[in-house]
């Protein structure tokens, strides 16, 4: 983190009429980093990307690339590759012509164009398709062509706007892997917009979680998943149980809270709070442990199983604790439980996190 940030958003806002889509947003991205902008639709992530590409002008604030302000540079001079969700391939040009398009605009010699087009087609594993028209390719192949067209001119930054949204699940996973590989091999700086949290978790170096035009939290996938700071992030990333509790005592790493039935639990908190503050406890389903007795469980609580569903690689259990319904993700090797069984649940203090409601 000692290096100079490559891309920098300084207090950037974008207002459409009476709607503030991006709100005084600060964000820095380092060279070679893979940053995902994750959020629900309308949270401003795509608008931010469009401002970086130059298709939208910020209402206020500055966007910097390599230390110089980019605001007035038109998109065709920014040297940023954009991969669109609908691929935006030119339907009247063949695959090779599509990929050669940015090179021709840059006045690259014919022989070199041919060579670079072939090289990049190998890179995205699409040789022998160069003469076809985009309409003759499958969705996944079109996406690879769009990627090749972006990579071929070695852009400063690759911007991807939900590029895998239109692909089916298997293809999407394959493309996620391929994009990661290209990122690593070519040392690309990638800004990746998505509303799919698992995609963001899989691919990113860092994730910026967007909500209402602001960044709720930014950090590594582990940070975001294991240590959500806000209610929104905890609910948006993965699945979680939110238990209303009161803050009791402790510092910002280890503290204790009281449930509404008066039981004290050892948990972690990102901040120190006043005693009695009403907060939520975020507990991921996979962090709930199950036992026949309280022995060997931290934060043990008596519970009753309402339902167990077989999910292939795991069991999903609905559990009731003091009238609060929780979801637990249990290992399939566990002894079978039936609805109505009285059990004990527990969790480790580092896995439960205090969140302000």
């Amino acid at each position, binding site marked *: 983190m000692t290096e100079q940030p490559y891309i920098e958003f300084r207090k950037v806002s974008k207002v459409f009429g009476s709607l503030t889509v991006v709100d005084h947003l600060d964000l820095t991205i380092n060279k070679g980093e893979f940053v995902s902008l994750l959020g629900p639709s309308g949270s401003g992530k795509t608008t931010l990307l469009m401002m970086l590409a130059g*298709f939208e002008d910020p209402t206020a604030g500055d966007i910097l690339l390599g230390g110089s302000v980019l605001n007035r540079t038109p998109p065709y001079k920014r*040297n940023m590759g954009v991969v669109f969700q*609908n691929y*935006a391939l*030119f339907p*009247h040009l063949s695959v090779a012509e599509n990929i050669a*398009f940015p090179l021709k*605009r840059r006045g690259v010699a014919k022989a070199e164009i041919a060579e670079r087009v072939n090289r990049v087609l190998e890179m995205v594993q699409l040789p022998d398709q160069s003469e076809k028209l985009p309409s003759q390719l499958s969705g996944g192949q079109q996406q690879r062509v769009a990627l090749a067209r972006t990579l071929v001119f070695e852009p400063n930054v690759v911007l991807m706007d939900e590029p895998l949204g239109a692909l089916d699940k298997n293809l999407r996973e394959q493309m996620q892997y391929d994009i990661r590989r290209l990122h690593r091999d070519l040392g690309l700086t990638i800004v990746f917009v998505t509303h799919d949290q698992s995609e963001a978790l899989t691919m990113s170096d860092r994730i910026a979680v967007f909500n209402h035009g602001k960044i709720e939290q930014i950090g590594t996938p582990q940070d975001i998943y294991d240590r959500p700071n806000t209610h929104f992030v905890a609910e948006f990333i993965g699945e979680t149980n939110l238990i209303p509790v009161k803050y009791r005592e402790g510092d910002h790493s280890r503290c204790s809270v009281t449930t509404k039935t008066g039981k004290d639990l050892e948990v972690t908190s990102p901040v120190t709070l006043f005693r009695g503050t009403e907060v939520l406890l975020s507990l991921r389903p996979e962090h709930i442990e199950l036992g026949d007795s309280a022995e060997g469980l931290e934060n043990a609580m008596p519970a009753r199983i309402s339902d167990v569903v077989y999910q292939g690689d795991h069991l999903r259990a609905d559990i009731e604790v003091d009238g609060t319904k929780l979801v637990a993700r249990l290992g399939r090797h566990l002894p079978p439980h039936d609805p109505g069984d009285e059990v004990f649940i527990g969790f480790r203090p580092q896995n439960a996190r205090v969140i302000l409601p």
Partner: protein
Amino acid sequence: MTARLGPHLKASALVLPLVLFLALFFVWPIIAMLKQSVSDPVVHNTLSQTSAIAAQWNGKAPVPAALQDALVADIRATTDRQEMGAVVRRLNSAKSGFRTLMRKTRRAIRKTDGPINLGEVDKRWNEVAWWHTIAQASSPYTDRYLLAALDYGRDKHNQIVALPEDASANRTILARTFVISLSVMLSCLAIGLPFAMVIASTSGWLRNVLLAAVLLPLWTSLLVRTTAWFIILQNNGLINSALQALGITDQPIPLIFERTGVIIAMTHVLLPFMVLPIYSVLLSMPGNLMQAASSLGAHPIVAFLKVMLPLSARGIASGSLLVFMSSIGYYITPALIGGPSDQMISSVIAFYATESANWGMAGALGLVLLSITLLLYVVYGRLSAEKKGVA
């Protein structure tokens, strides 16, 4: 078999009204018009015996006596004055002098019931040329209208020759029709293409307003719009007053009864036919292709030339063809707004059809217009088929 035929017949019955309508009001008039342009039944029907013998005559002098006798018999048999009048008009239009010749001959025939030597009645009957005219006119079909539509005619040796310049101006008018249509097409393209691109790039209420701006004129009567232009284009009309008020000109620019006015009014009337096809093609394109081109390093002008223009080519082609084909048949606008030297081929057709009742000429010119339109359509079909093969 009947079980299969049943629904088929029912489906056919549904389109029957359409088929009947098209047959009665589209196909039949066209066939009738085509027939008018080549039919020449007057002489054939009235001078039937003469026609039968003339068909066998080799055209060489001397004129066979049988032919002369047949003509006398035919004239004697025709008691209806109107019928004979039509024959005389037909013959006189092919060779002037027939009117007096025929009047003289009929008077002579009426005087006696016996055989008559036509050469004695009038010595013109001794000349082969007059008989040639009768022989040429005696066929029920003729190409004289079609030839005349293109400023051609047949000389006394029955050879196709160009008519003298003062005799007809159809080719000049056809060329003028093409020039005006081409100008209208180009100005529609110059206005329509950017406008269609603007509509396609907008959304919501703005798009509806812009679309309405194109469609609204289409819902107004052509006559009303032309009349409105008639008023606007006057020397002291809206345009000229505005130009003078702004100090752009001192004197009114002549717009009414001028080519410029005709082109302005026709461009306005035909603009929707250019905008709508281009718009629909643009609409089927992903909206962010221009953004993509821009992000790939293309200046907006280059992006337009390399992406937008080739992709809207099909819309431009169909729009241009629609405008061109509509404008070569235009009648009301040039008739009201244009001067005498701006009249298009339709005005000539209207003249023959409504003023001189020369259905043959009207039909022949109509046929020429129809052929040009069909030819253009075939060319367009070829072009768009090739495009489809590539795309």
